């Protein structure tokens, strides 16, 4: 229905957003690409000349590379799984009639407001500390040996911390989706004597699929980049080194900007693979 006039107006209106994002993407990307072909060691005098694909080869052949990719995928996958499953259950529960629903919703939503650095610090020190942490007290109360969470169950601990932060987000979106469900449809199914599990499977879940997709898409974008949670808790030790963290180590700890930049390019590639994969699913679910 759009006229020629409104089409060109639309283009003009889109221009600022597209332009600034293009600059924001291209400038760092170009610089990253530039550095990735250089031997660039800030502590040894900076730019030491072109080295072709050396950095790329070195980054990918390093023994740390594949474990880092795997860790990244495990963390992203683990958090997605936990937040989506628990999010659905929680959303179903919160959708039930109850007293004080507003207050409960406030309680559930709260972790989303907490800075990642703060939540990592609080979890690490006040809960997971094997001597003074609350978990240690709890374990001792039941006569068990306290667990050294961040060394013995490092990956699980980080997944737990991150899941705690993102569960509210998932729950809220899923809850809104459930609430938009036509209750007559549900009641009809109930009258037909469909058992709850069947109702969930055939009516509620399909209705929520779109919301689930959104949750997965948005969280993936943020989860691929998590850094503070690892920096504060394990510093990348005990198999918690993600690709992002590996790049951090190369750039800042080893002060090898060229190598880190090559890593950055790999991370972009990985992110795009994941994005492409997501778009396939999302595309199906998101079409207008």
């Amino acid at each position: 229905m759009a006229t020629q006039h409104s089409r060109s107006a639309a283009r003009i209106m889109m221009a600022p957003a597209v332009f600034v994002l293009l600059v924001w993407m291209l400038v760092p990307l170009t610089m990253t690409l530039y550095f990735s072909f250089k031997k660039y060691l800030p502590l040894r005098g900076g730019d030491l000349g072109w080295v072709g694909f050396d950095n790329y080869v070195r980054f990918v052949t390093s023994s740390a590379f594949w474990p880092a990719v795997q860790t990244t995928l495990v963390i992203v996958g683990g958090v997605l799984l936990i937040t989506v499953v628990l999010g659905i259950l929680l959303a179903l529960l919160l959708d039930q009639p109850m007293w004080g629903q507003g207050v409960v919703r406030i309680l559930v939503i709260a972790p989303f407001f907490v800075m990642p650095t703060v939540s990592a610090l609080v979890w690490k020190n006040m809960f997971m500390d094997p001597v003074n942490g609350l978990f240690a007290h709890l374990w001792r109360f039941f006569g068990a040996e306290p667990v050294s969470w961040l060394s013995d169950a490092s990956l699980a601990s980080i997944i737990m911390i991150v899941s705690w932060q993102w569960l509210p987000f998932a729950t809220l979106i899923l809850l809104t989706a459930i609430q938009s469900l036509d209750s007559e449809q549900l009641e009809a199914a109930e009258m037909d004597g469909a058992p709850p599990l069947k109702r969930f499977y055939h009516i509620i879940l399909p209705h929520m699929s779109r919301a689930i997709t959104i949750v997965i898409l948005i969280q993936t974008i943020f989860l691929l980049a998590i850094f503070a949670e690892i920096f504060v808790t394990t510093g990348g030790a005990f198999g918690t080194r993600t690709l992002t963290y590996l790049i951090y180590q190369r750039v800042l700890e080893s002060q090898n900007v060229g190598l880190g930049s090559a890593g950055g390019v790999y991370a972009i590639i990985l992110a795009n693979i994941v994005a492409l994969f997501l778009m396939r699913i999302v595309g199906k679910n998101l079409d207008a």
Partner: protein
Amino acid sequence: MARSVTTQRKILNTAAAWAIGLLIFFPILWTILTSFKTEAEAIASPPIFLNFDWTLENYAIVQERSNYMRFLWNSVIIAGGSTVLGIIIAVPAAWSMAFVPSKRTKDILMWMLSTKMLPAVGVLYPIYLLCIQLGVLDNRLAMVVILMLINLPIIVWMLYTYFREIPGEILEAARMDGATLKEELLYILTPMAVPGIASTLLLNFILAWNEAFWTLNLTSVDAAPLTAFIASYSSPEGLFFAKLSAASTMAIAPILILGWFSQKQLVRGLTFGAVK
């Protein structure tokens, strides 16, 4: 949605939901409680829940060490500024995507989202060098712009999905009546879109408030927000649970309170088009 249930069922629901809600909220509650304890009480075994001598000394120590108000104010400016700027740029873009969609609309949207996937650490040196060139290190305006850019894709997307839910017929009718584009935007769309914009504002304010990589690495004094404030408390010497708790509480309290007061607005628009 008035489904009738037995009182018994309702009690059960209430109990379960409250138990889970409190469990999820507990780490925050525990942090707040600990911030009022002495260091010795904070690590007492078994843990003390409520019957300790409430003290404000940790807050006093933290305040004495760092100028909290300045960090807070920087957080407000940076998070607020970037959100407002983002909305100004995103509204027209989202509007045109929603009402004058073309074949490429979805591609553009996905491309925008993909710019968020560039790992920040990988480009720290380039961006740092660039900021030096432009003379904008430790500059609030620069932080506003950078955080705006980081969150812009999310803003555009949220607004786009929200605008799309506005029925097209209304616009058609307005056009028939001879409304100009400007009038259409100003008198018809904007009022309908206010809840969506409000919720977008809130979400992005929260995201910008909590952004801890760029805000920490590109600021030192003048533009340092609360993320930098908390970086000086992460592992001081000796017993520090209570002080850490006080600093943490101070860092998250403003956003927590804002979030609670505005959670209805936030939730209403937080659908990303997930609901048809």
